[in-house]
């Protein structure tokens, strides 16, 4: 199984979730993060002082999925997350050794 972490633009979340649901992803976990990447932030003026805003608000999506579906998930995210602009985000794929569903104690792919 794989543990996929995607960091994307916040306003794409809705579309990404739909895309993933379509290909059969049944669960995911989402949180708000700040990103530092190529998209470098920008300079702003506050009370007459110019300063650099270094981070960009991003949304992090985590998905556990069986290994065979991982490529499809990555592709689906890529497609639905892109705006073709810098800062579209990144997807990280890690190896997932075990999953357990708390309520039933089921484990492995059945727990996904």
């Amino acid at each position: 199984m794989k543990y996929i972490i995607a960091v994307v633009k916040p306003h794409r979340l809705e579309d990404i979730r739909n895309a993933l649901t379509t290909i059969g992803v049944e669960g995911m976990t989402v949180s708000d993060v700040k990103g530092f990447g190529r998209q470098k932030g920008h300079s702003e003026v506050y009370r007459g002082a110019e300063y650099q805003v270094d981070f960009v608000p991003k949304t992090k999506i985590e998905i556990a999925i069986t290994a065979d579906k991982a490529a499809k998930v990555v592709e689906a995210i890529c497609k639905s997350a892109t705006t073709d602009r810098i800062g579209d985000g990144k997807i990280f794929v890690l190896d997932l050794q075990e999953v357990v569903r708390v309520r039933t104690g089921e484990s492995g792919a059945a727990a996904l």
Partner: protein
Amino acid sequence: MRAKYKLIASPIAAGLVCASGAAAQEAAPVASDASVFVFNTLLFLMSGMVVMFMAAGFCMLEAGLVRAKNAATICLKNIALYSVAGLMVYLTGYDLIYGIGEGGIIAPLNIFWGGDESGALADGYSAHSDWFFQMVFVATAASIVSGTLAERIKLFPFLIFVALLTGIIYPIQAGWVWGGGWLDARFDDFAGSTLVHSTGGWAALAGAIVLGPRKGKYVGGKVAPIPGSSLPMAALGTFILWLGWFGFNGGSQLALGTISDATDVSKIFVNTNMAACGGVVAALLLTQALYKKVDLTIVLNGAIGGLVSITAEPLQPAVWQAILIGGVGGVIVSLAVPVLDRFRIDDVVGAIPAHLLCGIWGTLVVPLSNSGVTFFGQLTGIVTIGAFVFAVSFLCWLGLKYTLGVRASEEHEHLGLDKAELGLEAYPEFTPG
């Protein structure tokens, strides 16, 4: 001079005329002595109420402009400073202002205000209503200080300074003018551009210098802005201050019971309002021109700058003059905020530009609309009061620094004063860290 003297000249005169019966009807109509008394008293009470509410305005403005980790502390400081001001005005302040005697320099010390109402009939208003109105003015000056020094000053040293400011420093200089002291004859400050706002500003400036800037504000020759945690709260605070200013300036007419006083209070309301409008629009256009973006925090300061600017003379200017006077206030604020940063004077809420600088501007411009007032006289007042308040405040701050210490430790500053000094958080469920 304000208060006592003036009123003897108006409602009482009215009273005499009234007493002479039908004769009164020949000139402008006058109200009965009793009505005049009630009107005047009511003006103090109604105005005093909204000026008291300015404490909430300062609290919101400051809580909105500090970081979340210091927001509870600034609220505590605001409610505590108002309370300390109340106690100190009762203990020494009021008698220091009004006990000075004509042309005097300092009143004999007299503790515990007596609450004597025996002169009320002659004064044309209740002594208690006047006391209340004066008390809330003193609190205003102290509120100015808390904003500038936010996020780094320790609670108790701050409150001790407030006690000194409201019990001694403010009363002495206010006595010079409103108490009928030596400055009264040469200097004019209707509602306190200099006596209240610059005084608060000087005290804040002295504190800011002694205290130094917040950690991380000036890093390697650059200004690192520290954005306020809740701008809507700051906007609310500004609206509350604007509301309170009708009482601040309108109530400073000190009388309402005659047709001419009521008309004057009305003029003051209009001018006060329009000066604030001018300040807002000026700051809006100027920040747009300078930074290509309108800066809400400066626009809010612009409203206050406009209000402070008209405070020295809200009655005489024509409406267009009031707009201009306030507009210049908005300009001053917009330009001074970054300048202050260049001197590394860290003024968290922009109180020094709005209250000190606009207070000076407002006082200086009085001769333009008020022929009895000289530029030189105004300057005399600004300089002597400024020197006195700044010097004494500076000494007080130094004294506090080398005894109790005034500055929170670096660790406390990192952590935020809410956790460090109050052991709680302003927004425990929201703040990330």
